[in-house]
Structure formats: C-alpha cells, structure tokens
C-alpha cells in the first residue's frame, strides 16, 4: 500500500497534477464514494431532517458531491489549494475553506450536526518541523478539542483513516477521549487486507439517536471479502479433481504427442509406443 503521507506534506503532495489524478481516477472515485456512504450510515443522522455537516479534508469534493446528492448542506476544509481549485471547477455546493486542521477550527460552539472525514487523519500523524506546535500530539489535540466544540450535543463525527500501526490508533483514541469525545474504532472487513477500513467514530454527548445508540456500531464483515478474488474458482477446481471428473493433464494422448515431437526433432532414445504407454505401474506391495 502506498503511503503518500510519508512522502510530503499534503499541501505539497497534492499539487496540481496529483489533484487532477486523484479526482479523475474512477477507482479512487468509487472507493471514496463507498466510504462516504458508509460514513453517512455511521453518522446515523435522523432521516428526513435537514442537517449542516462539516467535511474535514474535503479535497476536490468527491465526498461533498455525495453530501449534495443526499441533500445535506455542508462546509468543507482542506489544506491543499490545488485540490480546492479542482473542487471549485466541479461546482459543488458546499463552502470551502483553506485551513490546516492541525491548527484547529474557528467555528462557534454547536455549529454542526455532524462531521465526516475520509482518508485524512493519517496526514496529521507526521511532524513536519521541529516547532512544538507541529508535533502530532499537539496538532491532534488542537484538532479534536476544536472539533468537539464545533459539534452540537448530541452528534457524531466519523473519521475514516489509514493507520500504519496499533500505536497510532491508541494515540488518536486517547487524545480524542481527552478532548471529551466518546466512541471508538469501527473496523470494516477486518480480515481483508484490501477492503479493510478503519473508522474513528466519535460521539459528542450520547451520539444522537436515543439511548441504544450509545454503543458503537458494528463493523461490516462479509464472507466474500475475506478471501482473495477467484479463490472460489480455485476451490471448485480442486473439488473436481478429487472426485476424478477432471482430466489428468499428462494423459496418454499427451505422452504420445510429446514422444512424436521428440522423434521429429531427432532426439535419441525415445521409448517405443505400446499398449503399456501411459499406464500406471502396479503397486509393488
């Protein structure tokens, strides 16, 4: 898996060309869309009610487009100007801000009904300068406390990210808890390398939606996704083999063909063909 967050800071990594590539890749669009829908599901907003959402690290508006479709009003922040430019070209409805989330938000208390963030938090886990305000814990602390303030009580924030280690998850959850959030980690498809997705589900107050909603939602687990693709085909082939219906690869015809080939090439010592060719030997015992 590539780790762009280890190569350069986001505002540099997502320059003009990378921003275009990121937005036009259909595979990426699909992944982002799936995760956005899943995040909205985890956000558990009351159906039919309007909501004002915050999209953290909105980028070129791939997730924002879905928020528009679903009828939510939203504001987005991102640190990469090139990404925001692409977002402007795509004419999405939300308000965009050029902002470093590690510096904290300036939103008034209780501004938003919820927040989503798709593939962003891992960018906060690397220090870029040795200044104390750019250490990851400091930035995360600033991010979570101001986010907690900006959200309504009760509400939720769903942050999807790609952790490299369990330590990172530990660090994130502990800082989020200190900032006053409840909740925890939801992992979708935990047994699949490719489809595994980690969501940090943070609750302000009860997290919205009544008493029973306080517990963490279940992660998705799907039988098919635990296996590699085509594994089922491999299995059926194996099964056929055992029951003997599948033809042996090196049968009599194959042997005869090979011998004929060797003779044509003038190889010496090719055995004669007989009725015993390609037969199994008797068991000795």
């Amino acid at each position, binding site marked *: 898996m590539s780790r762009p967050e280890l190569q350069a800071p986001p505002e540099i990594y997502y320059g003009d060309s990378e921003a275009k590539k990121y937005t036009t890749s259909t595979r990426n669009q699909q992944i982002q869309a799936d995760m956005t829908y899943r995040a909205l599901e985890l956000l558990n907003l009351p159906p039919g009610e309007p*909501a*004002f959402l915050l999209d953290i690290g909105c980028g070129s508006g791939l997730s924002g487009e879905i928020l528009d479709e679903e009828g939510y009003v939203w504001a987005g922040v991102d640190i990469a100007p090139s990404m925001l430019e692409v977002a402007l070209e795509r004419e999405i409805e939300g*308000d*965009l801000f050029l902002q*470093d989330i590690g*510096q*904290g938000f300036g939103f*008034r208390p209780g*501004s938003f009904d919820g927040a989503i963030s798709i593939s962003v938090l891992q960018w906060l886990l690397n220090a870029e300068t040795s200044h104390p305000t750019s250490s990851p814990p400091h930035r995360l602390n600033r991010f979570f406390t101001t986010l907690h303030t900006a959200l309504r009580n009760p509400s939720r924030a769903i942050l999807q990210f790609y952790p490299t280690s369990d330590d990172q998850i530990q660090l994130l959850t502990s800082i989020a808890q200190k900032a006053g959030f409840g909740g925890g980690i939801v992992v979708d498809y935990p047994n699949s390398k490719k489809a595994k997705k980690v969501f940090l589900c943070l609750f302000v107050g009860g997290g919205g939606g009544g008493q029973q909603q306080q517990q963490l939602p279940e992660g998705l687990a799907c039988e098919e996704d635990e296996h590699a693709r085509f594994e089922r085909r491999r299995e059926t082939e194996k099964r056929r083999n055992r029951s003997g219906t599948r033809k042996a690869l090196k049968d009599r015809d194959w042997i005869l063909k090979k011998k004929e080939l060797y003779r044509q090439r003038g190889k010496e010592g090719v055995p004669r063909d007989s009725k015993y060719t390609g037969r199994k030997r008797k068991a000795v015992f």
Partner: protein
Amino acid sequence: MVRLITHNLLACHVKGCTSNNFPLIFQDVQIELQEAEFNPDFVTHILPRLEWGALVDAAKQVGDTSLPPERPEMMDDDLLRQLHHVLMEIHVVEGAMICPNCKHSYPISNGIPNMLLAEHEIG
C-alpha cells in the same frame, strides 16, 4: 464561496483571541449571487444557531438590508424566503474577513478564505 450561513458560525481562532472574536468583519468584498434550492425546513432548523445581530450586520456589509434588525417572534414564509436568500444565495468571492479583536485578516480569494495561521498564532 463564503455564504453568510458559514460566516455566521465562524470566529477567529488565533492563539489567545478568545473574546470579542466574533463576528469577523468583511472588507472590500465582491459578491456573487447564486440561486439555491429553497428548503424551509433547513432554514428553521439552522435558525436557533444563528446570531441574529451578526447576521444583520454581515448582510449590511455585503449590501443587503432586507432583514429586520431584531429577531422576529414569528417566522412566516416570506421571511424564511428572505432569510434563505441572505444565508444561502449570497456568496462572497473576493475580499477579506477581519477579526474585530486581534485584527487578524483572513483573505478571501476566488471564493476560498485562507484560514491558515502563522507559527506564532497557533493555539
């Protein structure tokens, strides 16, 4: 695209600037009007979160004086429509937002406000 709805939720986040840091004052603004779908439910839903005085002031700064200076007791359809226009359809495209307390200026260019802080301003 700074709409007045987001402007009304935005305060200054410079280190130590915690009082009198709202609302940010518009300066040298250029606005653009873009029609948006009218959703009365959303407007009534967001209304309790808005600071009425700040909204009226901000609307005045961008040249819209249609709102009454006091928050009306009853909301009728006309007023909701008026509010919808002010909140959702006026987009500030160029200019700046100035914090009334620390005078930090957040420049807006091409519809995107630059909220980045310098090293010494980070809280």
